[in-house]
């Protein structure tokens, strides 16, 4: 098993397992799990993830997660 920090931004924060927050929570995953597996665990449809970052680098659904990673899933942006 590995442990990662999950940060869900904007409306996605409602999918947190603990109190809804964008500050992050720990998740336990099976070794070899990808971002897609993590999102399935959090009931997040792939189309809702407009941007995925792992350790502040762009990632995608196929990115394999490692112990200690920080995963951030973000909505679309505008300005203002």
């Amino acid at each position, binding site marked *: 098993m590995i442990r990662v920090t999950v940060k869900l931004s*904007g409306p996605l924060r409602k999918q947190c397992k603990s109190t809804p927050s*964008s500050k*992050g929570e720990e998740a336990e995953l099976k070794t070899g799990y990808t971002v897609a597996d993590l999102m399935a665990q959090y009931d997040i449809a792939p189309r809702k993830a407009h941007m995925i970052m792992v350790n502040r*680098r762009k990632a995608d659904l196929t990115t394999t997660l490692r112990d200690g990673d920080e995963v951030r899933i973000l909505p679309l*942006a*505008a*300005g203002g």
Partner: protein
Amino acid sequence: MNGWMGTILRVDLASGEISKESLDQEWAWAYVGGRGLAVKILFDELKMDCDPLGPENMLIFINGPLTVTGALCTGRYMVVTKSPLTGTICSSNSGGYFPAAFKTAGYDAIILSGKSEKPVYLWIDDDHVELRDASTIWGSDTRSTYDTIRKETHKEARVACIGPAGENLVRYAAVINDASRAAARSGVGAVMGSKNLKAVAVRGTKGVKVADPEELLRSTIIADHVKKADLGIAFGEFGTPLFVDVMNANNIMPTRNFQEGFFEEGDEINGAEIIDRTLVRSKACYGCALNCGRNTRLPEDAKYQGRGDGPEYETCFSLGSNICVGDLEALSKMNYLCNEMGLDTMDAGITLGTLMELYEKGLIKEEDMGFPLPWGDADNAIKLLNMIAMGKGFGQEAAMGGKYLADKYGAPEVFMGSKDQGFAGYHPRAMVGQGLLYATSPEGGNHTTGNTIQPEINGIPEPMDPLTSEGKAEMVISRQDETAFIEACGVCLFPYMLMEEGTEIIAEFYSAVVGVEHTEDDIRKIGERIFNLERAFNHRLGFTRKDDTLPERMTREPHTEGIGEGNTVSLEEMLDKYFDLRGWDREGVPTEAKLKELGIL
């Protein structure tokens, strides 16, 4: 007339003379309204070399033909003048409910000229227009000015006013309407203050005629579509501070005076934190489908106290990450203070960022300011904002803005702006098209003459590498021209930016309102005409390529760790292509052929 009210109000503040004239329909077809029609009026009438804070400058309040119609998000107006901050044409826009009252009182524009001998405010009650004494409210903050004028006039009056910052001619003073919405940028509040004009108060009860009301009913369907879209839902729930997370993730949230693009404490000042800690309710402007405004209050046990609107994303950047304040309560307090005093939160933050970097480098000292000003020092930032607005001590110097301070203290390279106006909250080193946009904006650092988030960050309509120059000149031109048209219509940029088909939809709305079919190409051409006239206006004042600059921090210093690490902006290469595509010469001067093609000459 469909869409337009057909009347322009003129007020000579020196003589007190008030007159009304018919809108020139030919000009309206060519320049629409808002910043488009206003720059045409100024281009023809303004004494170009006038002092922006002298009586010869003109100040135009203006709405557009789509304002207060059934189109989408129609509660906007603009304040257009020659800026005391940049010396260029400027257009500062705002929402709220003042724009609806202004238009339904029966006017497309109010043109203010001269300087009143004593403080006055303008009271417009439909056809009745008068100047009233403002000596008892001169010196008041914007909230009490709003309350007092409503008591003196009508409980339904809508008020746009200045605070002490405008009266004291702070170069980045704002006009605040509805007690919290800001036509913030470029020092339009200082121009108002220079004329001894404290406020414009309006009550409007008239209707706006449109050519095809049935077609406009479609907007309610589109509004529903926007509200249900992912970004629409997020906008309504989190407001613009939602984008703190996105900008931070993309390494474009300007931090430590643009030295970096990532703020470690971003999670402390984002949309979610506002909901959890300070939000009272979300707010909408007139005719809005999104509700992105935030009314907030600081908790009773907080160090700082207050209630007001905001912060918006731009303030989370300017008074947050840019000066390393990761305390939402301190940030909110600074925001309330700026609204009450009538200061632009953005250039206030740029000024503070400039000073903090000068202080860090030892170029400005505690004895110069009267206190230390290290990164993140919210207490002294609050103290200085008060001094700036009230014209006290070192505040008088800081009132001149970041460029002035950087020059005076021997480090011009630490001012983060273009044409002397501070940048918005998007770091060009990891979003280089935005750098080109800042450099070529008629009023310098600015996010409402277009932004490049949709193509560069969202990848809509097609993925675009934010780190390279490829395709950026074409994209920036397109964004600038479309934005010029949308703003000229007197509507909010947001919904049209949110929809991929935004340009098509506004062309349909415009056609339905004015009763003459306009295609997307037609409205782009109008936008291009407006943008070129603004450029021609600035060129008359001597602005050329030499002024389309970015600080060396953008063009030479490599971007810091994260997305775009090591990147810089290749501005000169993009400018050549941009000027060629614009039909301007390589000095950035619109050619006679281009101006003739657009019907400007």
